[in-house]
């Protein structure tokens, strides 16, 4: 991959902006709530600005790795600070920027331990940005862990519904995943003979088949835990339900993509033979996830559980796209990571708003909520339609591409997954009907609808979904610049 150095450190600024935000917040007093929120918003906004800039200014004709910054970090161990943007991570950086920005806006009304909340959230997002932009395995893993650990604290303090259980379960699951990732990464490092963590240099090495097979399966399961790959998904619905709104947004929207992005960026990139060997297992697990998520979701009565299981199913689609190992599949998969991220953020943000007012997420208790809060309900319904794969939204294109590839590669398995999407539509419509179009619950009639300010973050998310739904080429042209050379290397 060609590297194009940059003359201005866009990416470093993107990742440091939240860090500086944290540093300022730490010097503010808990009482200065407005200032704390403003600082978080500004630092998230700066990151968002940079991520939009890299997305737009990425030279699609040139391709390769752009905005590259590379400094030697620890010479003796071959560690370098090496960040860059290509077609695979540009959409994900943009996604992170959008979700954190809207996440801060969504939590504007938070009153409990505001200072720490925003500090931890910015810390988490630093890790996420870092993972997406790192081209060095050491920093990749460093940022990966940074993104995972604050979740424990965030769920434990600001969460709800069995939060202690959920926080511990989530942390231990994800750390167990890291326990598989470390040996996998280090095996690549050690057997390459180059003693470098640099992904591009390692790409030039031909690893022996058994190293490729072993590493691939270690990293597949290690990252698979975070990507909620069936059967390692059980932490995810529980965790999402327990987490506070913006954390669910970030977690389901962005963090889970770290897992699938990790699979794409490291094991698939470096171990093509391992991928060939394990791809049918990978595909099978993905299909299981899709079908399982849909059917378990059908039985749920809590809105957040419904979304949690739909996430399992949608992440299965991402994994299925990767498992096909084709241009269409990977295009769709990366696009689906982006689309699902925005969509889930919208889902959780809508549910969070409703829950804050009604203190319930039971579908039957909400009843005809559409008559009480038409705008809030509209947000949720939009997300549900998007989740069902209605044309006009970004996820339609993503799912279409993935299923075209899947049916071609996996045949009957792809068809089964596709069929379950129909059930998924049923699933979405059932939830929408029962919670928004039944008889309204008189308990909630006094509630006010979303104010324009609080509606703003949700509007941004919807606008993004529709923009990329109508002009998918904005995204696909970019992704293609990376996927085509990627596949030819497989």
């Amino acid at each position, binding site marked *: 991959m060609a590297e194009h150095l940059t003359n201005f450190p866009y990416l470093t600024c993107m990742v440091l902006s939240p860090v500086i935000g944290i540093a300022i917040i730490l010097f503010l007093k808990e009482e200065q709530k407005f200032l704390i929120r403003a600082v978080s918003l500004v630092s998230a906004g700066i990151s968002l600005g940079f991520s939009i800039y890299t997305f737009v200014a990425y030279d699609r004709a040139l391709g390769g790795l752009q905005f590259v910054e590379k400094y030697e970090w620890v010479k003796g161990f071959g560690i370098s600070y090496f960040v860059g943007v290509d077609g695979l991570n540009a959409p994900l950086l943009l996604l992170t920027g959008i979700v954190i920005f809207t996440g801060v806006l969504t939590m504007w009304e938070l009153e409990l331990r505001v200072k720490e909340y925003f500090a931890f959230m910015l810390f988490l997002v630093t890790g996420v940005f870092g993972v997406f932009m790192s081209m060095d395995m050491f920093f990749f893993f*460093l940022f990966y862990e*940074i993104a995972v*650990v604050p979740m424990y604290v965030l769920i434990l*303090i600001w969460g709800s519904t069995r939060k202690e259980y959920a926080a511990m379960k989530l942390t231990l699951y994800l750390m167990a995943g890291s326990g598989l990732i470390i*040996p996998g990464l280090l095996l690549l*490092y050690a057997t390459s003979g180059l003693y470098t963590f640099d992904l591009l240099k390692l790409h030039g090495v031909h690893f022996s088949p058994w190293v490729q097979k072993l590493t691939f399966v270690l990293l597949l399961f290690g990252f698979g835990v975070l990507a909620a790959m069936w059967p390692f998904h059980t932490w995810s619905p529980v965790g999402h339900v327990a987490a506070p709104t913006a954390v669910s947004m970030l977690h389901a929207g962005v963090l889970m993509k770290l897992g699938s992005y990790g699979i794409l960026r490291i094991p698939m990139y470096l171990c093509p033979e391992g991928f060939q060997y394990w791809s049918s297992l990978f595909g099978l697990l993905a299909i299981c996830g899709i079908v399982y998520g849909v059917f378990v979701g059908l039985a749920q009565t809590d809105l957040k559980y419904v979304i949690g299981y739909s996430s399992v199913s949608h992440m299965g689609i991402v994994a299925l796209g990767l498992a096909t190992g084709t241009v269409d599949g990977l295009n769709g998969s990366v696009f689906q990571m982006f689309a699902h991220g925005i969509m889930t953020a919208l889902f959780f943000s809508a549910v969070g708003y409703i829950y804050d007012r009604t203190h319930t997420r039971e579908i039957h208790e909400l009843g005809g909520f559409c008559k009480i809060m038409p705008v809030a309900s509209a947000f949720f319904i939009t997300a549900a339609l998007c989740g069902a794969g209605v044309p006009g939204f970004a996820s339609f294109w993503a799912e279409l591409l993935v299923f075209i590839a899947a049916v071609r590669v996996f045949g009957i398995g792809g068809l089964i997954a596709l069929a379950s999407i129909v059930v998924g539509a049923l699933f979405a419509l059932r939830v929408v009907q029962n919670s928004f179009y039944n008889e309204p619950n008189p308990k909630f009639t006094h509630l006010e609808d979303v104010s324009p300010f609080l509606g703003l973050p949700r509007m941004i998310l919807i606008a993004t979904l529709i923009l990329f739904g109508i002009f998918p080429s904005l995204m696909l042209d970019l992704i293609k610049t990376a996927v085509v050379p990627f596949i030819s290397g497989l």
Partner: protein
Amino acid sequence: MKAVALFLPELYFLLMALVLFFCSLRRQTEPSKDFRLFLAMSAGGILVGALSLFQQGSLFFASYQVDLFSQVFKLALAGGVFLVALICHRLPGVEDRFHAEFYLFLTTCTVGMMMLVSAVELLTIYISLELASYSLYILIPMRQGDGIDVEAGVKYLFIGAVSSCFMLFGLSYLFGATHSTYLVDILPKMPALLASPVGLLGLILSLAGFFFKLSLFPIHFWAPDVYQGGANQLVAYIATASKVAAVAILLRFAALGSSYGYSFAQILVFLSIVSMTLGNLVAIIQKDFKRMLAYSSIAHAGYILMGVLTLSESGYTSVIYYAVAYLIMNFTCFMVLSEVADDGRDLQIAEFAGLYHRSPLLALALMMGLFSLAGVPPSIGFTGKLLIFTSAMNQGYFWLVLIGAVNGTISLYYYLRVVYAAYFMDPGDLPKVVPSPAIRWTTYALILIIIGFGVFPMHVVDLARTAVKFVLYT
């Protein structure tokens, strides 16, 4: 004059011991005066250690080697003593009239350890080790208590004596087989010797004395009792400075086995795996904070051994880095412990309940220290552990790294329990904790070091790499 310059840190600490000895002769007890003197002199120790960092030479008929390797460790030891001195401002665990003696023996112990890291001759090594051990034999039962201190003291004495016996036995084998007590002479004969059981047995038994200090399986079982029975400040010293010295000499000694790898390394692999797994599993069920840290130190001895057994430059470098990291992060936990237990009692994990409300700063320090011990980034512990894993993998120890990584996950569970208590449990009627300004600034500095050196490890790593060249002869 050159000799004095070479021996300067040891001389300084000897002088310090002498001054403290005169203090202990005073008729009236003046604990605060003793404390200030000890603090000031140990601060001077850091300065002396830093000044003599780049000294190089040998002393006492070449039995005593001064090089960057030894000086780095001496600086770390001086730093450790100074940190421990900082938390001695309240020393409720020890009777007032014994404070001067307490400081005196801490100092002599440090002298012993400083000599240990420079010693390159078997008898010098043994004598230095015993000087350090005897000081600790006296220090442990000094705590005011209900007899648990005596039990701990006796246990430490007996196990220490037994491990010394093993060590002497092993050293006699080495001496008998090579006709020399100098490491320089022994080294070229090791490849031939290690092929025979005598050499292997001699080397492994000789390491027993260092395994004891490091609380490595199978000589680990003193740790929980001594940690619980000793005064908090003393245990902070045992858990930090004493471990660092053990690591240093272990590195120097294990290098003897570097010429002939397999069975020697296999034994260490076994010890490392058992030590970290056992330590982490038993730590889960502990209720007493110090006992938990004791088992965590057994687990960490396993991690450290993982780097030692690579017998490679990168492995040694990462062990030095990790030893320094371990000193910092473990000390952070002990500092919080001794501040919270202001009357010198043993602290149950449950007594950290609501520490966040009682002292947010200490709660943050505790969390940073524990996360660093667990290997969570961005911290010095994470980077250290990853460097160790990297170098072990470079030597092809795949399973060892896998087990180590899984152990990291297990350990997170019990560290998180303490964090949970500190942040999420109701404080009830537990009192507020107000750290003094000195402790507050130390806490800021420690947190900064934990994060700063975790993200920017290059300078320490470079220094360690240069230092390693002096011990790894091959």
